[in-house]
């Protein structure tokens, strides 16, 4: 068992990848394809949770692809790592666990939600999971680019899954162009960093900036990386693709797309904190990130109010929640060289990282509820819906929990993370805290609107025969609501066990370098 544990990082990426390639062969046998896909998702979830537990106990785990021993980062006579390296610290393992959990739930939900070409759908879903896990587990800039691209391309296949309508195709095209532009600039930045520092390894780059500071090319590379990853994370004012893509993708895919955005955020902060954390350059980046965050908060919350399409409404509300994460981690980034502010920065980051997991859960929950409504009624238009609480009581209840969570009301988990953000950001700059608070209140409004429009009101004739969705779909929503409520009731325990280690992993650049090299 001890030996196998060493291989878990590679297996967590390899298993979904292998099954993604296997599924097209099972096209003829629908049930076996679904079972194989769910088995792969479950195994990956187990691996990701095990890695999280292992990393929390034993510190950074590295895996050198193709080496004689998994832990061999730098071969003999070499000063820098030459192989592709997976390096998993607490923050990576945290993100990996979130991604695997959402993917498993999305997979279970999709059994009934997707009616045709199961093998293609699950193959792409597994590929997406492999991309997300690779993106968060990798310790190599170029490998990060490759997995970023795998994630994007498989997402496009899923966004444009329903080809018989024009809108998903348009959304897919937009998402494809956006992610291609982002990845081209990422690759440019990777080239610049390689030319400047001579290594592609994140820990190697980090050591190089610790020793020699930054150069002119680093400024360009950092600006390119920050902009590209912010755009893929859906930060305003580069958020316009988000409602388009989220609105048109199948519901379970949208939950995974939210995870993909969070993985982009991971990449952004991994680079900002771990590679350039020691340079004075980082404070300027922090201000840029905070500005992106404040804009996202405000634009997302206000634009969410006027949406007529249910999924676009949730997508806009989600943008404002991404703003919370950006603001919190941006404040942490700004406080990194400012000794009196450091405790507040660390606390803001705790709130931000806690909000990452909460955001993934309630955003997924809301999108899954929206998908349930869409499955039974065939429409996402809020003006046409109404009175569904009589027919779909469970979905209504879960939607209510999701709405409470996204609005940041107690007892949901988002309340705990948001209060951490408010009170620490208040010490950094009261105005930002006020904007965050106001936009959080504003998000209540679209949720009330959506809930009333879909579930309350008189019964509508054409929805008289609507039934509750199948048990498997309800089960996934139940799990997510339970997680949201449990995390809200025991926030202290969650923050202590998984969030604080992740924050410490982000903050201590030298520990990362020491752990990997």
């Amino acid at each position, binding site marked *: 068992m001890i030996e196998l544990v060493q291989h878990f990082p590679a297996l967590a990426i390899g298993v979904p990848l292998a099954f993604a390639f296997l599924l097209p062969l099972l096209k003829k046998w629908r049930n076996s394809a679904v079972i194989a896909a769910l088995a792969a998702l479950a195994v990956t979830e187990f691996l990701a949770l095990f890695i999280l537990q292992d990393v929390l106990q034993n510190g950074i785990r590295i895996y050198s692809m193709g080496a004689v021993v998994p832990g061999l980062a730098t071969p003999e006579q070499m000063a820098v790592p030459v192989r592709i390296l997976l390096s998993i610290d607490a923050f990576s393992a945290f993100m990996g666990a979130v991604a695997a959990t959402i993917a498993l739930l999305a997979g279970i939900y999709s059994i009934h939600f997707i009616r045709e070409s199961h093998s293609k759908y699950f193959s792409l879903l597994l590929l997406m999971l492999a991309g997300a896990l690779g993106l968060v587990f990798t310790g190599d800039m170029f490998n990060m680019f490759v997995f970023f691209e795998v994630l994007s391309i498989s997402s496009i296949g899923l966004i444009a899954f329903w080809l018989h309508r024009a809108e998903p*195709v348009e959304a897919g095209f937009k998402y*494809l162009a956006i992610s291609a532009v982002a990845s081209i600039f990422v690759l440019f930045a990777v*080239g610049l960093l390689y030319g400047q520092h001579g290594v592609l390894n994140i820990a190697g780059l980090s050591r190089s900036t610790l020793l020699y500071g930054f150069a002119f090319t680093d400024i360009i590379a950092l600006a390119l990386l920050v902009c590209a990853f912010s755009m893929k994370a859906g930060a305003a004012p580069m958020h316009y693709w988000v409602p388009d893509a989220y609105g048109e993708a199948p519901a379970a895919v949208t939950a995974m797309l939210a995870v993909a955005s969070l993985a982009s955020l991971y990449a952004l902060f991994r680079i900002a904190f771990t590679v350039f954390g020691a340079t004075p350059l980082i404070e300027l980046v922090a201000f840029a990130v905070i500005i992106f965050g404040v804009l996202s908060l405000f634009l997302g919350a206000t634009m969410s109010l006027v949406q007529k399409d249910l999924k676009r409404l949730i997508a806009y509300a989600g943008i404002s929640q991404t703003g919370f994460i950006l603001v919190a981690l941006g404040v942490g980034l700004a406080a990194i060289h400012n000794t009196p502010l450091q405790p507040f920065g660390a606390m803001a980051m705790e709130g931000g990282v806690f909000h990452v997991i909460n955001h993934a859960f309630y955003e997924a929950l809301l999108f899954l509820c929206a998908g349930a409504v869409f499955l039974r009624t065939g429409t996402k238009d809020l003006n046409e819906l109404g009175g569904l609480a009589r027919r779909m009581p469970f979905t209504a209840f879960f939607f209510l929990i999701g709405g409470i969570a996204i609005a940041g009301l107690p007892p949901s988990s988002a309340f705990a993370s948001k209060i951490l953000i408010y009170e620490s950001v208040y010490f950094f700059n009261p105005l930002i805290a006020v904007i965050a608070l106001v936009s959080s209140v504003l998000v209540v409004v679209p949720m009330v609107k959506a809930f009333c429009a879909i579930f309350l009101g008189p019964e509508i004739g054409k929805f008289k025969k609507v039934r509750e969705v199948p048990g498997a779909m309800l089960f996934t929503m139940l799990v997510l609501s339970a997680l949201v409520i449990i995390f809200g009731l025991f926030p202290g325990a969650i923050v202590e066990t998984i969030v604080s280690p992740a924050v410490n992993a982000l903050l201590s650049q030298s520990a990362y370098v020491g752990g990997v090299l």
Partner: protein
Amino acid sequence: MIAVLSQNLPFVVSALLLLIGMYALLFKSNLIKMAIGLSVMGSAVNLFLIALGYRQDSIAPIFTNAPLVGAVNAAEMAMPVPQALTLTSIVISLAVTALMLSLAVLTFRHTGTLDAEKAGRLKG
């Protein structure tokens, strides 16, 4: 100025190619032209990476051509890593182009136009 430009000609060209690609993406509303713009941008990055790995008077980075350890005046090799990056990037840009063209074809079939302004339905 001229000397700097001529010494760094590949990088200048790659920046120009990048700008051309951006121009297509910013100002052309035809979906195929956008795909062309993205391809040009991908080529710009490839050129940049190849130029990055080049050393003057260097030999190809092949294992059996490597000079013996400790050889005097051994010719330096070009850096192999950027070339590997370029190959991967070419593969990825091929996949992106193929997907983009097929989505453009699908858009045309649904809406009867390749003009993004006329085909667009998602806004607001």
